Each structure stands twice: as C-alpha cells, then as structure tokens.
C-alpha cells in the first residue's frame, strides 16, 4: 500500500505514525503539524521527520504560523494546495488525516 498521512497536530502523533506500515509512506505536514518541520524541542528535531524519506509541508500553513518555506528542515519539501491534490491523486493509493 502507498499511504499518504496528513499530520495535523504537534503533539501525540508518534503513537499512530510509528506503527503504520506501508510500501511507500508519505508524511504531509498540515495545520499545526507544520511545527514538526521547524520547531526543535531541547535542540532536537521532531522524531516525525525520521519516519519517512517522503516529507512535505503545506506552504500556506507554514506561512500562517510565521515560518518561511526556505527556513524549514531541509528534508521537508514545501508544497501548495495544488501539489497536495496531485499527491493525493497520483502518489498515494490512500490518504489519512491524523
């Protein structure tokens, strides 16, 4: 299964994410999930960023919260709503919002 996971919050995301198994797992940071792309706690990057090599963050949700697209973890690709539509239709068989 190719699974796209929209991560929508900053806390309590690990428990679900750590257990999902997929041939291809995409992590798309949206809403308060975008804090994972930028905020370090105690100097450490979010463990969410280790869960997959396919990492995205919604540009508009970054900007809303005060982050520039150029100023996030280099592994995370900033995407638009247009890009998100393409990810949903073309890259992943199923998508979930957690």
């Amino acid at each position: 299964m190719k699974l796209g996971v929209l991560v929508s919050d900053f806390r309590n995301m690990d428990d679900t994410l750590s257990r999902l198994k997929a041939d291809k797992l995409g992590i798309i940071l949206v809403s308060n999930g975008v804090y994972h792309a930028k905020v370090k706690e105690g100097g450490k990057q979010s463990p969410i960023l280790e869960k997959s090599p396919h990492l995205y963050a919604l540009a508009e949700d970054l900007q809303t919260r005060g982050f520039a697209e150029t100023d996030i973890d280099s592994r995370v690709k900033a995407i638009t709503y247009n890009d998100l539509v393409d990810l949903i239709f073309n890259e992943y068989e199923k998508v979930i919002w957690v």
Partner: protein
Amino acid sequence: MGKLTIGVFSSLVGSLSLDFAVKLSEAAIKKGHKVDFWVSGNATMLSKKGQRAFKDYSALEKKLQELFATGNFQATACEACAEARGYRKEDTMDGWKRHSMDWYLASCFSADKVLHIGGD
C-alpha cells in the same frame, strides 16, 4: 480526472480545518476533479446560512458558492447533527443538501480518493 470525497467531522469553527477542506476542494476542482463534501458533528455548522463575516473568522460562504457554480462540487450536511444543533432545513446555506450518514458512505463508495478529517 477523478472524484475526491472529503469528510469533515467534529472540527471546530474557529479552527482552520474547514478552511483547509474548502481550499483543497477548490484546488482539486481547478485541476478538473470532482469533489463531494460531507460535514458531520460540529463541522455541520459550515452549512448554516447567515454567518456574519468577521476578521477573526474566515468567511467561507462566497468561496462555497463559487465551488457550487462549477457544477463539480456537491456538499451535504449530516441531517441529525444539524437538527441536534437547532438548524432546520430552512437554516441551510444555498447549495447544500442534508442527508443521513449513509450519503457519505455512498459518496466514498464511488470516490477515487477519500480524505476523512476526523478527530477534534
């Protein structure tokens, strides 16, 4: 071109989850897809007519009317969830339908992709 069904559940008015869902619908329709939109729980409030626009709340009515006008957007509110909140049929924003929950499942049945926005 495909069909995307988006369900928004207990999301708060005053959160941006409803805004997210509407913007995603708009982007999908611009790319030639069709979108079915279902609101349940507190998200039902999106279908209420007469919401006053304040700068502290995103006003989504105009955007929704544009989406309806494309002919590729259907939106339906959970009837029981609306009634429980004191919304009658006549309180529903133009363009919206009200149905029971099986409508959502039927929409998912024929959808290529489903994005279910659950949780808070």
